[in-house]
């Protein structure tokens, strides 16, 4: 059974990526265990009377030499707001690593990574970690408007970047499902991975099923514990109700009852 830990990290960076998105880099006092894209941490939100439970966030980057771990935090409500205000030097208590990662592609496979909202975090992590040549990797990122996008140019080196915005202010106009890479080229890929709003993932799953393409999605169900003891985060699957926190958050779309 995988070892899990609870530990304090020191915030060493908190950068604003856009009006509602923050990059938070944390330093551990001990060497970090191996962590993979799709896995997440459960973050304690301190110094507020409004929040009782932890909040789950995907692991975005790990540096095993520096013992750092980074998150991308999008403000959705009270907890993410409070977290976004954390200052360098403060500590953050994490339970980690949690959940299962994406199935890594085989070498030479062609993959498509689709991220929406805060769902880009595990996608970019996967782009970096999958070990494929950039020409085999396409990264499609969707947002409402260009202002909601964050700058990910450096990920060019891991794959080709594509964007959609609902208002057409950046990339293709519409949802990610309207982008040519998905609309017309889906069969070209061996594996498709997605993380983002449920509606987006459901739409992608539909297309992937039609195209008969392998597709994994990462769910963001509400969680109380994050390590499999509360059974609050369940998702109905062909194997019955499974825990998103331990059986997921990554699921093959064929397992889901979508």
């Amino acid at each position, binding site marked *: 059974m995988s070892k899990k830990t609870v530990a304090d990290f020191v915030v060493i960076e908190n950068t604003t990526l856009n009006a509602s998105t923050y990059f938070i880099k944390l330093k551990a006092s001990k060497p970090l265990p191996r962590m993979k894209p799709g896995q997440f941490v459960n973050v304690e939100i301190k110094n507020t009377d409004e929040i*009782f439970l932890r909040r789950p966030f995907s692991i975005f980057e790990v540096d095993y030499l520096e013992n750092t771990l980074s998150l991308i935090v999008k403000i959705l409500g009270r907890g993410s707001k409070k977290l976004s205000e954390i200052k360098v030097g403060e500590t953050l208590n994490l339970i980690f690593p949690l959940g299962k990662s994406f199935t890594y592609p085989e070498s030479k496979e062609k993959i498509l990574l689709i991220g929406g909202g805060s769902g880009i975090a595990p996608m970019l992590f996967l782009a970096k970690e999958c070990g494929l040549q950039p020409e085999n990797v396409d990264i499609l990122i969707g947002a409402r408007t260009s202002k909601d996008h964050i700058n990910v140019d450096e990920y060019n080196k891991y794959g080709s970047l594509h964007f959609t915005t609902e208002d057409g202010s950046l990339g293709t106009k519409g949802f990610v499902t309207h982008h040519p890479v998905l609309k017309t080229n889906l069969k070209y890929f061996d594996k498709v991975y997605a993380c983002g709003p449920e509606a987006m993932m459901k739409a992608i799953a539909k297309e992937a099923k039609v195209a008969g393409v392998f597709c994994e999605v990462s769910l963001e169900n509400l969680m109380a*514990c994050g390590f499999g003891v509360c*059974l*609050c985060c369940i998702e109905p699957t062909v194997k019955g109700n499974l825990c998103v926190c331990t059986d997921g958050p990554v699921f093959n779309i064929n397992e889901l009852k979508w």
Partner: protein
Amino acid sequence: MVNLSVKIHELQLKNPVMTASGTSGFAEELTDFYDVSKLGAVLLKGTTLKNRDGNAYPRMAETASGMLNAVGLQNKGIDYFIENIYPRIKDYETPLIVNVNGSTVEEYIEVTEKVNELDKIPAIELNISCPNVKEGGMAFGISCPSAEAVTREVRRAYKKTMIVKLSPNVTDISEIAKAVEGQGADSVSLVNTFLGMAIDSEKRIPLLSTITGGLSGPAIKPIALRMVWQVYKAVKIPVIGIGGIMNAADAIEFMLAGASAIQVGTAIFKDPFIPLNIIDGIENYLVRHKIQSVNDLTGSLQM
């Protein structure tokens, strides 16, 4: 060296700190973090006769200093437990207690009979207080006659230590406690969750698929503590205190009010190490206050 060991009827615990049912899985999940043999006992996830899918998502809502859950006893049934889970966990060096549930008295009995056969299960906790199931559950625990009936029948089927878990959603919990004591309960544990509700005012919908759910966490501690105190005064069997315990001071408060041991529930979601911290904290308290045995705390509130 202070004495932390506690006896609940024939159940010997190395310390009074257990993890509550439904908040510590089947103990395995905790072994991801630490050696569960440090715990007084682990109350396993509520188990029924047959597989139960539980309630639909969403099952959880955060509240002020607490949370609501509507899990609804999701479990694979007692046979699955016996065949698949029990063999994996039975050698943990901590008492594993099955939390027995049913929609009918017969179901409670059937589950109990099967558990009775398991060598490494020294006790059951009879859950007559689950607020999240349509049939059975809390319905048994909120009236004396039905609490008596299920306790009496399960008692017949079970030879080891039988703890009955009480619902706080009643006018007089000490009446229910006396009723189950009268039918052979070896101990009572309290409280289970309070029936509560949460609403999304913007979307104008309930936050739980089941509309209502069970409230747990520090929010309920003052009420749970009062109930433990009332029940302690009403019965002779040991009382196990549950409800919002987050730290050693909380645990000690429950013991002062009359608990012989305590269970940690929702706190585990915040930090799975809290039960261990509480054990250390109690030991420290006994040393500081020059108290020999943790048993001397029970009911020692000064008035």
